[in-house]
């Protein structure tokens, strides 16, 4: 069998690839290399080191790896990804898709519409609404629950942003699972039901094996998005006392507010590495699945 299915020939195939490769080079590879370089200097936003940055070797990297605030931030990010993306968005998204799978009409349209609306609204608008909801002094939630003065964003900052991000991003998982569930032949489910399988058994033995690829792809995408998500900043700014300072917020706080651009670049590069590892794990899992299927 010919490997050149489109019949382009090597020259034209390269021609098609070049624009994409140039874009990737200019906007991805070069900035990544530049970040590594900046991370090796004491570059600052203001002061002498802004005009004349000095090469400091791996100092920023070792400082970051030894920084307690970085460790805390990494751990909070893991909680944020697991809580809001893996459990929250993927779990809730699947639950909604499953519950609506053979419904049609107004109920489905309203539910889908509301979930989608949370996803498509601009993040600053959404953040403002959530602050109005959770504010300790005049918040809507306190008015509803009659718990006046309970400062949700201060006493439970992580839980607040996990909940917020779940609400915000469930739409993607819901739509992806909704489409995936349509690929499960109804006859298989019917057969399983007739054989007396419980709902859990149907999910485990019929549905999940069929949509495993979709689930992994979804988890890969939303984990990476959530890992790098900055919207939570607009709710808590990483506070109070860094208790919701996930990595992107940490980088912003040290690099731009604290002015330590070199140190911020070093941390950014570490985050890039973590993202690559995360992506590799998922891709490995996906490939393993294909190997079995073939």
């Amino acid at each position: 069998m010919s490997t050149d299915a489109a019949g382009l020939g090597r020259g034209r195939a390269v021609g098609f690839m070049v624009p994409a490769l140039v874009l990737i080079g200019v906007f991805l590879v070069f900035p990544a290399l530049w970040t590594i370089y900046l991370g090796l200097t004491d570059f600052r936003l203001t002061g002498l080191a802004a005009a004349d940055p000095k090469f400091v070797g791996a100092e920023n990297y070792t400082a970051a790896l030894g920084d307690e605030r970085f460790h805390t931030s990494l751990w909070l990010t893991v909680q944020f990804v697991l809580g809001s993306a893996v459990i929250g968005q993927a779990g809730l998204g699947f639950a909604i898709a499953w519950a609506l799978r053979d419904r049609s009409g107004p109920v489905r349209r309203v539910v889908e519409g509301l979930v989608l609306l949370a996803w498509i609204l601009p993040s600053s608008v959404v953040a403002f609404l959530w602050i109005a909801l959770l504010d300790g002094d005049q918040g809507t939630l306190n008015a509803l629950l009659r718990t006046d003065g309970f400062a949700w964003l201060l006493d439970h900052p992580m839980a607040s942003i996990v909940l917020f991000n779940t609400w915000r991003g469930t739409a993607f998982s819901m739509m992806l699972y909704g489409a995936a569930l349509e690929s499960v032949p109804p006859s298989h489910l019917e057969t399983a039901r007739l054989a007396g399988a419980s709902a859990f058994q149907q999910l485990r033995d019929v549905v999940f094996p069929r949509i495993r690829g979709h689930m992994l792809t979804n988890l890969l995408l939303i984990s990476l998005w959530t890992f790098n998500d900055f919207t939570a900043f607009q709710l808590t700014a990483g506070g109070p006392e860094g208790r919701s300072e996930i990595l992107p917020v940490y980088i912003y706080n040290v690099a731009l507010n604290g002015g330590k651009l070199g140190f911020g670049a070093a941390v950014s590069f570490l985050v890039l590495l973590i993202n690559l590892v995360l992506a590799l794990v998922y891709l490995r899992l996906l490939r393993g699945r294909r190997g079995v299927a073939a």
Partner: protein
Amino acid sequence: MRPARMLTALAAATLALAACGSEGSSSGSGDDNTLTITANAISGGKNAATADWTKNWLIPKFQEAQKAKGRNVQVTFQPNGVDDEQYKTKIALDLKSKAGADIIDLDGIWVGEFAQAGYIKPLNEAAGPEVDKWEGWSQIPEAVQGLGAFEDKKYGLPQGTDGRVLFYNKKLFAKAGLPADWQPKSWQEIIDAGTALKKAGVPTPLQIDAGTAMGEATTMQGALPLLVGTGSEIFADGKWAGGSQAVKDVLGFYRQIFTAGLAEPRLQQEAKGRDKSFQQFADGKIGVLAEGDYFWRSVIEPKAGVAPMQDREDTVGYALIPAKQPGAGVRGQDFVSMSGGAVRVLNPNSKNPKLAWELLAFMHSAEATKEGLIGEARITSRTDVNDEVLKDNPMLDFVAQKVLPITSYRPGLAVYPQVSVALQEATADIVSGKSVEEAAAAYDKKVADLVGPENVTR
């Protein structure tokens, strides 16, 4: 055929865009006479009076004056209404990318680090020798000129200065059996007043800014006035204050008011805590609040303030900040304060540096300065204006007569803002319940890392 048509379309689109782009900037005669002013001020919000003065008086007047000279000048105002730290980041990024407004409002304390970074240039380098000939210099006292200077070079024109005092609510004081003309003579008397207010059911007796969310306000309104009250300064004789007994005394005072429930930790932790504390003071929920005269003229101001108090004149009192004990303050003083002030600088990347200087000088003329006081009375940098207006304003007269003679200034060094952050973090540790020893030790280590252990006093 196809590619050709596409190119034509692209070219047409680019031309159209270019036409749009240039329409706004080149006006009239063809030479580019546009200027932009920026400040952390916005109509209906933060520093509204400054924003309104700039838009409604300054810009029309300047354009008119230029028109009389036969020049068609277009001036625009870029408003901001955010926390000072965010504004600073924005301006630094603007200047770093060689963009930004022609005339920029800065806190005087940022001048050093911006100058060292090469973001701003001395005024006479940016605009030429006419700067030194300006009539206004003779009207600005040396100490006030220092606000816009770094290493003996003038980078900015100071707008004025201010002083820190204790504001208190006389109605709440009456409820707690405290005098209407309150003047504490020691830290203990502040705590005593707080205790009495608490007993009388005032939700938050004291608000002394603390924590990192408040940014420089914590240092300027809280930590530093307390520090000079122990007789010590943040920077003296070439050395920075480390985890010394004086710093421990300051942290100890914070710890005392937070553990005794006299102050509200959450206000210090919230992202919008400072704005909230203003609102709560205006709502009569806070007994005593330490602030600069900015609070009087721009926050609780009955008309344009962000948290207006209609009964400001009758309800709000002000007192000097006492030293730890009488005579324990810096220079052996009984009372202390801190001062700073904003300056305006020229953007060295301005396309019209001469014209920008003309506008800047006009902004600081006696006429413009006086006009700027209509919405918002304050202590200006010009002696001629102050002599004329301050006598009608008891609060500002109080600051000018009683506070400025005993005040202290922050060191105009580039590393200061980082030391300030370390100090804020130490107070944040206290707010979240850490001990004085722990917080002081962590602070000491940070300062030693910043300036080198040999430059720290302990």
